[in-house]
């Protein structure tokens, strides 16, 4: 089959496309001792700035480990007797919302990625008259402040009897995720040579067959980039959850915010909660950082 003979070229192109979003130079030899005084100064400044960036991370963890004291007397203090007690309290209050967040994030990210992949495939490989202009019209949806649509969205969900529900939130995240996933996949598919589509067309495959048989198997890196981007965005969302969800459907960000009491704040528990809410996206970032950067730069319209 023509498609098969093209395979090596394509996978190389796919790999190139995967690298493309990061636009990083070929990896330099990672560890070398600075050779000049200037080199040492640069290294020193980078190290100090990096430690500075880590101070808030340290503060979150140190305070979260301070146990049931409520709040230490000084934000930089490391607890004398570190304990996980604060996590127990935070987990009791947050576990339901963490489960909600998971139930919202996974389907919404999957479906919006799938829709974005189909749109991106059409826009990159089957552009029609006016498709570029329509794409620009679609992209505006990525940047609007959601407050400008929140009242109609709220009324719309009421009409469907989905107000306050997890399904309603999933629906909203899918719809407002379409522009960004379309953008990521369009850029990704443009890096895959059109010859492969032509070959499939010569073999008599139509648009859908070419998509499912040829493009989809090549799309794994695109799905990883878009998936991470969407998972992070949806998990970290606050506005939609805050305004649209009923208490039973609150995502973790909303419940975490509610841990801030009106009079006194139990900072140990709050920071333990912050660790729980941050853990999934931070792990995703640390494990798949390369793809994370891919989605980040994809948000930049070329």
């Amino acid at each position, binding site marked *: 089959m023509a498609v098969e003979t093209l395979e090596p070229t394509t996978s190389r192109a796919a790999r190139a496309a995967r690298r493309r979003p990061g636009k*990083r130079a070929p990896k330099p030899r*990672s560890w070398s001792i600075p050779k000049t005084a200037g080199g040492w100064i640069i*290294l020193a400044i*980078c190290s100090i*700035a990096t430690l500075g960036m*880590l101070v*808030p*991370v340290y*503060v979150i963890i140190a305070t979260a480990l301070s146990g049931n004291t409520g*709040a230490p*007397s*000084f*934000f930089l203090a490391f607890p004398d007797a570190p304990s996980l007690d604060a996590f127990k309290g935070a987990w009791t209050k947050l576990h339901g919302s963490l489960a909600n967040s998971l139930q919202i994030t996974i389907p919404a990210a999957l479906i919006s990625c799938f829709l974005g992949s*189909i*749109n991106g495939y059409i826009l*990159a490989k*089957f*552009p*029609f008259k006016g498709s*570029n202009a*329509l794409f*620009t019209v*679609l*992209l505006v*949806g990525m940047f*609007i*402040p*959601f*407050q*400008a*649509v*929140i*009242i*109609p969205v709220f009324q719309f969900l009421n009409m469907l009897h989905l107000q306050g529900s997890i399904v309603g939130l999933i629906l909203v995240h899918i*719809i407002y995720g*379409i522009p960004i996933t*379309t953008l990521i996949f369009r850029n990704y598919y443009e890096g895959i040579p*059109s010859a492969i*589509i032509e070959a499939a*067309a010569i073999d008599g495959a*139509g*648009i859908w067959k070419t998509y499912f048989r040829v493009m989809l198997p090549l799309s794994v890196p695109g799905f990883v980039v878009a998936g991470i981007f969407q998972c*992070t965005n949806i998990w*970290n969302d*606050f*506005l939609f959850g805050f305004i649209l969800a009923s208490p039973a459907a609150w995502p973790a*960000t909303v419940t*975490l*915010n509610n841990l801030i009491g009106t009079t006194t*704040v139990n900072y140990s528990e*709050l*920071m333990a909660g*912050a660790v729980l809410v*941050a853990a999934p*996206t*931070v792990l995703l*970032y640390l494990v798949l*950082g390369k793809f994370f950067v891919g989605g980040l*730069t994809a948000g930049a*319209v070329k």
Partner: protein
Amino acid sequence: MTTSTAQPTPVDPDPRSRKQVPHNVRTSRKAAWIFAPSLLVSFLFVYVFIGITAYISLSNWKIGTSPNMSLRQPLGATYGELVQEQRFQADIRNVVVFTVIFLLLAILGGLVAALFIHHVAAGKGLFRTVFLLPYALSFIVTGVAWRWIFAPSTGVNEILRNMGIQNPPGWTTDPTILGALNDPSGTDFLKVQLGIPVALLPIIFAAAWQLVGFAMAMYLAGLASIPEEHLEAANVDGANIWQRLRYIVLPQLWPSTITCFVLLLHVALKIFDLVVAMSGSGPGFVTDVPGIYIYNYLTSRYDKASAMAIILLLLTLVVIVPYLVRGYRKERKA
């Protein structure tokens, strides 16, 4: 074109074009139909819904549960009411101050970080990972952490007191306006002091901490794309490090700067979560922003919430539309 016979469209003669799939009218129409549902849904949820919000802002609809779609007379009276409010004026001042200082910190910080990290001999990956780490966090997580860091009695003020500063600022609870330009009396149109609210500073620092890595990543990508030969040529010509920066590196980074500017600006205008987690409206609305204003009026005044939302939208579109149109034009030329 109504003919359904498979008619091959001429292949794009430009060999550089990546879009040279030969497809006929029928495939083209099918492609358009596949794209149509997404476009229609987006059109409804973005453009139609914005239209509805704009209409509500002109209507008499106040309480969500009792719709009143009659137009308020005189037309646009809600907007007139808005601009005279002390809270509205404070919001505009706050969002302008927030945006300007935040952009300066995040973009300059990102540029400097990228320049250093690009040239560092060891640990490049580690530095880059740490700088971008906050970007993976929710604004709520960032907000609660920085709320604690700037808590008046246990936070950075402890350090300031140890340094001999007797009365450190109350940060997010401090009503002081730095560099106040005016002193409004009750009768003026301007009902707020123009200047920099002290209470906004911790929120700005938190936002800059979270997004400086984003700017750094954009600039690192830009730096990696500068051809090595340009720098070598400058070296041969005897250009010193500042001259190379001024005449070669910075001009080549201009596209990264535009991207950072636009994307971070729209984050700044829409800022909501971070302020909710750190301070809310603050004393005398010193940390109030349009996002919070809209949220507060969602229960009692649909018309006012909508009017503020439309103003916020217009502020965003002024920046975003030229950026997208520029991208579209470039795309057509490519």
